[in-house]
């Protein structure tokens, strides 16, 4: 089973994971395509320091516990948390508990989220975000 970590302290806000996520899930013609990661501004006023970080899903499963329709589930092979849009009723309960705030909703209000790049993992590759990260801020461990 995979355990995904994101270290906000190590993240330098280079946006590589943010863009890698878009590139993995969309074709180049999709100009408006979004990332399953998000950009968050972190400010330390006293230190006069500010940076961006790009948090993504850590597959903790908190969203599964609150989903009334079973649209969010943990797949068995790698333990990744996936969204089944067909089942989603758009109640947004998942959004309220997501510690990383990375569940988004499509035009019909259905939940969409990081799929852990499961198709890449099946091919023996690392998830797109992890593969580009130059600082070690995104880590994946077997648990």
């Amino acid at each position, binding site marked *: 089973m995979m355990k995904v970590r994101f270290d906000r302290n190590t993240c*330098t806000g*280079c946006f590589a994971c943010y863009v890698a996520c878009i590139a993995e899930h969309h074709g180049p013609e999709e100009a408006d395509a979004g990332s399953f990661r998000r950009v968050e501004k972190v400010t330390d006023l006293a230190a006069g320091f500010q940076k961006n970080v790009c948090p993504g899903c850590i597959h903790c499963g908190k969203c599964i516990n609150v989903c009334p329709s079973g649209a969010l589930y943990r797949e068995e092979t790698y333990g990744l948390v996936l969204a089944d849009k067909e089942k989603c009723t758009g109640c947004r309960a998942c959004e309220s508990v997501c510690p990383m705030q990375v569940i988004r909703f499509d035009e019909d209000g259905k939940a969409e989220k990081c799929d852990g790049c499961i198709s890449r993992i099946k091919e023996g590759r690392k998830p797109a975000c992890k593969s580009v990260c130059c600082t070690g801020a995104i880590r994946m461990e077997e648990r």
Partner: protein
Amino acid sequence: MGETKIVKTSCAVCGACCEIDAYVEDGKLVSVEGAKNTPMQEGGMCAKGVAAAQFEYNPERILYPMKRIGEKGEGKFARISWDEAYDMIAENLLKVRREYGPEATVFYVGYPKWFRPAMLRFANLYGSPNFCTESSTCFQAAALAWKSIYGNRICGPDLNNTKTLLIWSSNLYHSKTTTSGSYQALKKRGVKIIDVDPRHTVTAHDADLHLQLIPGTDGALALSMAQVIIEEDLYDHDFVENYVFGFEEYREYVQKFPPEKAEKITGVPADKIRRAARLYAGNGPASLMFSASPIVHHISGVQNYRAVFSLIALTGNYDVEGGNRTQPGPFSPANEFGKVKRYDGKEAIGQKDFPAWFDLPCQEAQCTRLADYILEEDPYPIKAVFSAGMNHRMWPKPGHLLEALKKLDFYVNTDMFWSDASTVADLVLPACTSYEREEVQTKPGGRFFFSNRVVEPLGEAKNDIEIIMEVMKRMGLEDEVLAKGYDAYMQYILEPSGLTLEELKAHPEGMKGKNLYPPAVKTYEREPFHTPSGKVEIRSLVLERYKDTHGYSGLPVYQDFREIAGVDQKQYPLILNTGSRKPQFFHSRVYRMPWLAGIEAEPMVEIHPEDGKKYGIEDGAKVRVVSPAGEMTGAAAYHVGGKPGVVYIYHGSPHGDANELIGKDYLDPISGFPGFKSYFCRMERV
């Protein structure tokens, strides 16, 4: 879905040329990963590189040779054949040479840079001294500052052996993202890191000591560090006595910059200046990580950088293990880059204005004032420009250059994209991306890499060098190296290394050259420095040649831009800094990639919240920025990482280019580099 192929190639979105594993399905580029187990690369990538598909398949790609059919600048073009295009170029360039002389044609290379030597060969054989590149506003001034002191090419830091690293204005996490791991490894090894940067960047955040100076005051800071090092007797007496020219005058001059005085100029607390000086001079070996442009994008940039570079000699950290070294790793020779000399039998553009540029030769002319030279026909008429990757947004007042380009008799540009500089051309030619061509690359450590073609060229795009070869053929210009075709050319590059093209192709992971020379130290003990005095010239005899005519000083004197700019700072109370790196941009090239351009608002005007309150501009509000040279509007973004009083805008946006705010004559008198990073402005609510 077809089979997936993984092909070794390289990214050329920026100049770093990171090695890439490209995933190709049914002839399409579908995915990229950073190459692993490659020196300086640990498999990661940056935001720009990983958006490769949107670069390769961008709707703004130029696909066919296109000839202007409307008025100049109107943007109306018609497709023609390559044959017609080649004939049109040959006819026009020969005509200009016949009527105005060869110097009337300027040969220009923007991005990418890999075919510069081939273009230089073309210019030489045509007989024009005017081979120019985008280095007229990027990096070359840093090289000039270095060469004026040490007489050779810039020596990088020996990171493997250094104990203290002085990073002078490089936010490498964002400008050289793939080296992030190497930077972190230094910290883990216990290397002390001093970072000099006007902003509290992520790179500065990870340093042991951050000197947050006012942009453009680098010289005063470096001279002050020297003052401490000399006063506290922390300098290397042996090296200075034996190898440094001008030390006594320098020692005397730096006395003007005790830390308390430097604090007033630079904004860096005196105590921090002392600590930095003691650490750099006392915890050796120490090395300096240089940056391409931030220090020389000031009107006192060359002298400021000379003051910084002088610290290396002062502390004896030149060409020693862990210092700045001529050859920190193994080395294998190659042809072309740095080997082709520019034809200098005629006066080049920029030569009268910036003579030291030519005395410390970088084998290219200085074209920062290209627009003036075209419009004023001074020093002589410029009637044609043959360029590849022309990007007017690399210049201050880019619109001025665009207008000048329209005045030419003949202007042809080869590019991958329909840039604004292409739409004013008479003829536009489609260039291959790095994914569409083959290239032999020389790498650090005596290594060579063959960058494969991974997809077929889009439309009728061609490799830049093959275009140059064919144009020369049509003009009857036979260069002994270029005439033999592209494969022979790649073999020629490799020849001194002892490798053949065939064996390099058979080793996709790259190969070390067979003629491999070991790392070197203290090369100065075997041969003198290549300067007029044969020593390290803290006092430059080359610069002193132009004391009377151009006012250059041999010593790395500090002149404060706020005093010499001649701008009314009551009217323009804020310092304007354009082009400091953002991780998602590279000049103007990637604004056309929505995955990157959409990350943040652009153009983004980064201001300190205190200034926001002072001028009534809220975070996210629309703001007008006005300088003595122009104005633009953008989105204000509060950023506490910079100091109050300084405005930061990334340049090159088609929606408001910050470089339009920089005066065209606001230049460093030695290098001709624009003062992009310390001009003046005010802000207004919109």
